[in-house]
């Protein structure tokens, strides 16, 4: 009689029981992933707090990061003719919407920049960004840096800025870093920061109030630009790592909650199926007994 349920296309008691067991296992895995993320978030948060004061000076030299809150209002008009876009994404998945927000922002930026008659190319940091963006605009990608060993440090940022230089960062009028910024365990925002090399002479010459020793200002400004790029990549990478962990924590918590709700619904179904089976068995026994008597 148990096969009757299966013949009708309903899940049998056994199938529901298996479903409940596998959902319970998934719930265990997602809640342990959440706890691991919470622990890692603590370390990433500390590293971010330490990195923050070391990057404040770049805001004075190349402007503050711009919050990508509503993509429709961002025009990218302040960008010069040639921009190198550097999105910072994660390597591992199961981290909520961090990477898709960045991919969407970059796709939107490329569309708007090209519509203004300007050029742009992309150097992607992170495997998830690579897989998403290589589907939308593979011809714009110059280099990718993936499988980054966690946690990041300044040497990593130095190597990544060397990658940007090898991709031709010195030939672009500006470098735009798009990254997630950690606010707290539940909230993260997207920002982009534009870094322009500083003019050494003529109009718009920067740092005219300072005297440079030795006298070669162009050399020192070149060094400063390189250092500014490295420092900014370091800070954005730390920020992105903290945002990724907080997003993963939230995603795993939601997954555990949804798994719990599924288990409750399935358990009710299972009990109903079990009671139906018991009822049919009883009916069989009673009708069999009455057939014998009669």
């Amino acid at each position, binding site marked *: 009689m148990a096969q009757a349920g299966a013949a009708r296309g309903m899940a049998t008691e056994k199938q529901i029981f298996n479903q409940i067991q596998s959902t319970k296992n998934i719930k265990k895995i997602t809640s342990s992933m959440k706890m691991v993320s919470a622990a890692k978030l603590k370390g990433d948060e500390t590293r971010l707090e330490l990195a923050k004061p070391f990057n404040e000076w770049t805001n004075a030299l190349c402007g503050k990061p711009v919050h990508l809150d509503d993509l429709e209002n961002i025009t990218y008009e302040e960008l010069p003719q040639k921009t190198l876009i550097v999105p910072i994404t994660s390597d591992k998945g199961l981290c909520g919407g961090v990477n898709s927000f960045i991919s969407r922002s970059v796709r939107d930026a490329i569309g708007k920049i090209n519509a203004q008659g300007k050029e742009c190319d992309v150097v992607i940091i992170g495997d998830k960004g690579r897989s998403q963006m290589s589907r939308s605009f593979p011809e714009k990608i110059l280099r990718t840096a993936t499988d980054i060993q966690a946690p990041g440090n300044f*040497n990593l940022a130095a190597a990544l800025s060397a990658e940007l230089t090898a991709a031709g960062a010195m030939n672009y009028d500006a470098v735009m870093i798009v990254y997630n910024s950690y606010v707290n365990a539940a909230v993260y925002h997207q920002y982009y920061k534009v870094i322009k090399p500083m003019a050494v002479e003529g109009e718009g010459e920067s740092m005219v109030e300072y005297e440079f020793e030795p006298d070669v200002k162009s*050399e020192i400004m070149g060094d400063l630009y390189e250092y500014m790029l490295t420092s900014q990549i370091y800070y954005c990478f730390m920020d992105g790592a903290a945002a990724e962990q907080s997003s993963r924590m939230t995603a795993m918590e939601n997954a555990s909650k949804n798994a719990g709700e599924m288990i409750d619904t399935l358990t009710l179904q299972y009990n109903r199926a079990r009671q139906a089976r018991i009822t049919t068995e009883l009916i069989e026994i009673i009708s069999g007994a009455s057939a014998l008597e009669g």
Partner: protein
Amino acid sequence: MSTPTTFWRIAGMSYTQYVTRAATAVRNGLKEPAKTKALQHETFSYNAASWEAGKIGPKKQVNKLTNAGISV
């Protein structure tokens, strides 16, 4: 470009290479156990790949600053 003025530039190093080497020297000046802990802050590793016309090239592992940015 005018002739470079600093020795490390004449030797062909970039500013970030110079600064990271200086940091290594500072870390090597520490006493144990702070030294091993600090030297752990230097290691990094990632895979770099160049793209040509929408196709990814071979991946190369980079774990030294001198290897970074080299076209494959």
